[in-house]
């Protein structure tokens, strides 16, 4: 609906007159990006695809091995565990981040909450911190023998929790840390969307006797559906390629149990020099990302058409 309207206005604003006679100026303007695009996108994408069918090690000659790399990946338990761990991380991180940032955005735009402009900074600063610092910071909080969290747990009579040596617990710590760090970004998107909902809707609902929760479910959520879609899509893509927080929080540990896909690609490609094999793993990651994006777009379209 909105799409059609904007297409129509585009046509009326730019009648097919002499604008396309300019060739040189736009060409000069985009030259920089065209060169960058060719060098750092097209070239690596093409050779990555080619190398994924070879046994290239980064130096010397190589042979084409057909689909061997991909077949080997299917039977590689390390790759399999990295993939499932990445998916598990994504499935935990995205909803947590969504709920937290939506809750905070709602509280921040509420006209009854005092001090919102100051409080906003508290939610935003974690987003500024680099993933490495986020990892260090949460490692410090969740140290098994020295961390504040275990200290507080023992203080109230509990026993120390093995945040680092239990694979599932250490994954959960990373999920919480990442959600904490990424709230600021999703929150900004939500704030902009919530502010755009016409206040008359809420006033009308209030007159009909709808309480705050009812208003949230019936007005806010449907009105911000497009933003919700973008937040979920961005967070999913972000989570699928997470590495730095893991690197500094527990280094994929304990052991190798929380090695995620990007770390797997990094290790096979650069530690053991199997560039061909790592390229194949990269293309599997790309296919997963594309599938995620396509599924979410289809869902979004169905929701909007309803």
């Amino acid at each position: 609906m909105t799409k059609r309207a904007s297409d129509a206005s585009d046509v009326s604003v730019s009648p097919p007159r002499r604008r396309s006679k300019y060739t040189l100026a736009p060409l000069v303007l985009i030259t920089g990006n065209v060169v960058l695009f060719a060098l750092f996108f097209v070239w690596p994408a093409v050779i990555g695809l080619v190398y994924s069918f070879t046994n290239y090690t980064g130096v010397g000659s190589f042979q084409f091995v057909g689909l061997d790399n991909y077949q080997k990946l299917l039977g590689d338990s390390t790759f399999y565990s990295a993939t499932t761990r990445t998916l598990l991380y994504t499935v935990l991180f995205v909803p947590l981040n969504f709920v937290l940032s939506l809750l905070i955005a709602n509280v921040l735009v509420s006209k009854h909450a005092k001090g919102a402009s100051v409080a906003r900074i508290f939610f935003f600063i974690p987003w500024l911190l680099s993933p490495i610092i986020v990892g260090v910071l949460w490692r410090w909080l969740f140290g098994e023998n020295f961390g504040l969290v275990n200290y507080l747990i023992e203080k109230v009579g509990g026993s120390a929790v093995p945040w680092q040596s239990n694979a599932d617990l250490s994954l959960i710590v990373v999920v919480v840390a990442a959600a904490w760090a990424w709230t600021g970004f999703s929150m900004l998107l939500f704030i902009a969307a919530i502010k755009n909902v016409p206040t008359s809707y809420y006033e009308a609902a209030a007159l009909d006797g709808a309480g705050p929760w009812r208003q949230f479910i019936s007005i806010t959520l449907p009105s911000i559906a497009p933003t919700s879609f973008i937040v979920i899509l961005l967070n999913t893509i972000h989570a699928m390629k997470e590495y730095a927080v893991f690197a500094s929080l527990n280094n994929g540990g304990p052991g190798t149990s929380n090695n995620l896909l990007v770390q797997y690609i990094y290790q096979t490609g650069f530690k053991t020099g199997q560039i061909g094999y790592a390229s194949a793993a990269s293309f599997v990651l790309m296919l997963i990302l594309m599938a995620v994006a396509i599924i979410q777009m289809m869902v979004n379209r169905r929701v909007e058409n309803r």
Partner: protein
Amino acid sequence: MTTTDTVRKVDTDSVPAVSRKRSRGAASGGLRRAIAPTTLLWVLAGLYGLPVLWFVLSSLKPAGDLFSLPLTLFPDDPTVSGYKEAWASANFSGYFINTIIVCVIATILTVGVSCCTGYALAKYDNKWLKAFFLCILATTMLPAEVMLAPLFLVVRDLGLYNSLSGIILPALLTATGCFMFRQFFLTVPDELIEAARIDGARELSIFMRIMVPLSRPIMLTLAILSFQWRWNDYIWPLLMLNDPEKFTVQIGIQSLVGAQNINWSVLLGGSVISMVPLIVVFLVFQKYVMNADINAGLKD
């Protein structure tokens, strides 16, 4: 639609009258209504602020006090020895200078390249420009993390391995930047350009002398974002840099974490130092970041 319209009309007529009549009652009612959301807001803000507060306060404790029980929030005897040690050890000041060089150069170039491209995409309509726009869109589908190995080979073959330009150049291609400028220039009326053309201005001087100055707010917003991206980069510099002389701050800190026995005093000090530039940039330019229409550009 019609029902909400009539409701709104009734509403706007009645609300001011009512609130004027019982302004005193409304004030105390407002206070009561403010308690729940305000409490919720500040409890949440506390939860988000506490980790950073604990971290920064810990960094001010002397090394011997870091693990002494009972843990205390505030250092008894605040000291900056952890900072001094971090700054002196492991060539931290060198990492800092490298990172600043990368951030400043990459930011200037990113803003320049994105501004040119965004303007061309917004104000000219050649078929090949539309095709290039699709190409830019495609880059969001294939992030650098996915192409680590081939991108590494390309940059190595260009002779940029182990150099700061090897970090900077691949980072300049950003869909977000192009989108932000494109969205902005779409809002600039075409008449402005037409008028300048009638006055005999040439295309590129219209861009340089009218459009670039107009887009200053977007430039600032993208500059802040770009500075943050480059400051926080980890995996790409890790791959590109081999020589500890060229390390950036994030790699320096990660190498402290990877050490067999973590020297927490140094790690905490170094971490806090590395947070400072971004926090300062953010606090100074807060209103631009907060008002940025980051819906327009999506990739980090």
